[in-house]
């Protein structure tokens, strides 16, 4: 597989734009975000160096998070306080991850990326739902004013937050992965809020989406200084993913998400295996 792909800048830009558009569309429809397919797409299909792919992906992640958060925040699902508190953990993690990334050989990055893809596939395979609100109420939930409410069938339903330290630690891990691999790591963020902190699923997903932009911005500066962000690549990737995710958010109500999710899970599984194999053989 050592053929070299020679194409003009115009053709390359168009193909990358279309690929990014599809990645953004599927990412929004399945709730997994565009970053998880974008990086393997750029490296495995377009033979882009992993560092350029990570830089471009991180930029698209900020764009989609900010674009979608605008709507979610105004609908009243996402919790600004929970988001801000947990962003302390994700931003520290992201800066740490970005420093790790510049010191880690790309083949190892590829293997870690593959493992994250396999884990994302596993998470999306399992049935999602609200965990039963059990366990002791954390006194910090009220002290940190994290308890809130969200609209359910026109009525406000209140909730409290559990296992704050566990959620905080998991969020540091999510931030590190985001900074290391240039992804939003939404799956891990939702895991931390939904499963660990027992926050209602709808609040978890929207708050996660809201947090992704700030997490990614923490490591984007480091990547920019290191020269990982190429304007010729960032331009079609950012606009493509943004356009795709905006359309995806519009289609979400009509689409048959369960079928799409199954297909997407298999795609991620296959990409994960390929990333690991390529990393192992030193082809990335």
């Amino acid at each position: 597989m050592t053929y070299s792909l020679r194409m003009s800048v115009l053709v390359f830009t168009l193909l990358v734009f279309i690929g990014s558009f599809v990645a953004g569309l599927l990412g929004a429809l399945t709730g997994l975000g565009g970053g998880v397919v974008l990086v393997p797409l750029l490296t495995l299909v377009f033979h882009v160096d992993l560092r350029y792919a990570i830089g471009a992906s991180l930029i698209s992640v900020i764009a989609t998070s900010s674009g979608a958060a605008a709507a979610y925040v105004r609908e009243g699902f996402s919790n600004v306080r929970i988001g801000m508190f947990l962003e302390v953990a994700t931003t520290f993690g992201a800066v740490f991850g970005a420093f790790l990334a510049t010191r880690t050989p790309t083949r190892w990055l590829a293997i870690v990326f593959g493992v994250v893809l396999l884990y994302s596939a596993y998470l999306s395979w399992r049935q999602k739902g609200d965990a039963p609100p059990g366990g002791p109420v954390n006194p910090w939930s009220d002290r940190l004013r994290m308890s809130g409410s969200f609209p359910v069938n026109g009525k406000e339903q209140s909730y409290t937050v559990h296992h704050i330290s566990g959620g905080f630690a998991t969020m540091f891990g999510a931030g590190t992965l985001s900074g290391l691999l240039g992804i939003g790591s939404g799956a891990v963020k939702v895991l931390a809020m939904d499963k660990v902190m027992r926050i209602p699923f709808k609040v978890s997903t929207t708050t996660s989406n809201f947090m992704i932009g700030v997490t990614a911005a923490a490591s984007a500066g480091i990547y920019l200084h290191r020269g990982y962000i190429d304007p010729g690549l960032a331009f079609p990737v950012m606009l493509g993913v943004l356009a795709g995710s905006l359309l995806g958010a519009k289609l979400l109500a009509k689409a048959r998400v369960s079928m799409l999710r199954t297909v997407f899970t298999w795609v991620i599984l296959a990409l994960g295996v390929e990333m690991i194999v390529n990393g192992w053989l030193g082809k990335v």
Partner: protein
Amino acid sequence: MAGEGMSREAANASRSSTFDDQRMESIMGRLLQVGVLLSSACVLVGGVLYLRAHAGGVANYRVFASEPANLRTLKGLMVSLCAGRPSAIIQLGVLLLIATPIARVVFAAFSFAMERDRLYVAISLTVLAVLIFGLVHSS
């Protein structure tokens, strides 16, 4: 709004302020929207000019060669912007995009200050400090 949460309502009532979390959230949403729109417009303009200048060249991202200094530092970027380089216009859009979530955190710090919520002002400023560290820290 009839739909205010119990604790939120109680907390806001004790602070005689007209500024509450809901106001903050709606302004924040608008702020993020404007940021994304501005940066996308900038990237689009730069991208079209970039394609006009480089469309016929061969795309090569196979080998990593760090971007030149004029695209990595603010000073270098300003110089090439003044020279009208398309790649610099795209990179300015990228910087605007990175600045959008940062502006959101700055706005949150101000909002929490108006709500007299010192704990969350401190939390927001901590996040802001990490963001600024990431942005200015080079090499």
